[in-house]
């Protein structure tokens, strides 16, 4: 079989419409940024899914390790005083 160097992987983010953030919708392989944008348009916007595309080389994304999940996120678990419902306000004060 004819093997070539692996074509880099890109992550694709689409903004469905103005007013919304770009959202991750998938990934694809492309040799460079121009081809990645064109491929993203063909693969992920065949039905008017958006009006703006970001493509980012997957190798550039720094991700947290799932093994660190507890260390990173558990400390927030017992801080219920960060939520509005932790505080009692009498009903007759009305909406606050």
């Amino acid at each position: 079989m004819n093997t070539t160097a692996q074509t880099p992987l890109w992550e694709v983010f689409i903004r469905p419409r103005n007013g919304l953030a770009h959202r991750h919708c998938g990934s694809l392989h492309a040799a460079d940024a121009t081809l990645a944008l064109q491929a993203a348009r063909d693969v992920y916007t065949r039905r008017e899914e958006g009006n703006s595309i970001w493509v980012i080389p997957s190798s550039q994304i720094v991700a947290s390790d799932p093994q660190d999940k507890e260390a990173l996120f558990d400390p927030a678990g017992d801080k219920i005083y960060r939520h509005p419902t932790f505080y009692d306000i009498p009903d007759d004060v009305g909406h606050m």
Partner: protein
Amino acid sequence: MYSQGLNDKNLETAETPEFLAAFQARIDADEKIEPNDPMPEAYRKTLIRQIGQHAHSEIVGMLPEANWITRAPTLRRKTALLAKVQDEGGHGLYLYSAAETLGVSREQMTEELLSGKAKYSSIFNYPTVSWADMGAIGWLVDGAAIMNQVPLCRCSYGPYARAMIRVCKEESFHQRQGYELMISLCMGAPAQKDMAQDALNRWWWPSLMMFGPPDGDSLHSDQSAAWKIKRFTNDELRQKFIDATVKQAEHLGLTVPDPDLVWNEAKNNGNGGYDFGEIDWNDFWKVVKGHGPMNKDRIAARTRAWEEGAWVREAALAYAEKQKHHTAQQAQG
């Protein structure tokens, strides 16, 4: 996503009974499993095999219909067929990406398809001999695929489930355009209706085989059900498909080619369902093992596409490399 990171990582997990029990507990609690989460090796392998097969099926599935694009009888039908085949290419790409999150490379999957190591749905090893086949494929083959795929939207593996949601949203048009095409033929001249009946005769049984072997003979079913990769058994989905499709055939005025097909009140817990004739599993296994009418052609077509596209991949990479140098030099100068 994450696959490049994963390639450097040691994927071996220590599969102690505690580890396996904890994993099963996550599945039982309907938690989704995401790419870098610890998972049993067999879960990873099962998914790589299943998602890979699914992706290959989409890609090979472009061929039988591409056969008719240039001969579509009207512009309306041609645009629909082009859009459908393009969707199938897209679906293959979503699925390859999902499989890659498990640490397999696109090149490796392509190699396995071309060498015959990886399978794809046996339905695509039948020829498309008449225009009516475009109707029958959309109606029956995509109909059966949708029946299979809708439960996969709730699969325990996140990237696969997300890819399937996209696929299912897009695929509804595939089935509807096929059925509409069948309606046109059935309302046409007697010769056109005969063509539609002939297509139904040829595609009916292979479509029923798309759900896989009977539950008793299915190799992977039990474990896949426990891991919530598979939500219904092959036989359950096949029954559902038959019950939904027979009415549609009646509406067309066509005859389902099964003399044993009969309504059975007692089936499906008293809700009724069809009893149907014996499926020729020897034929199914023959096609799976590579002896269907079109197996050789399909792989030859994919091999040709891969080899003839090599210079494009090489040129694009070489150009990207050159541009990088260029930019670096300009920055220095």
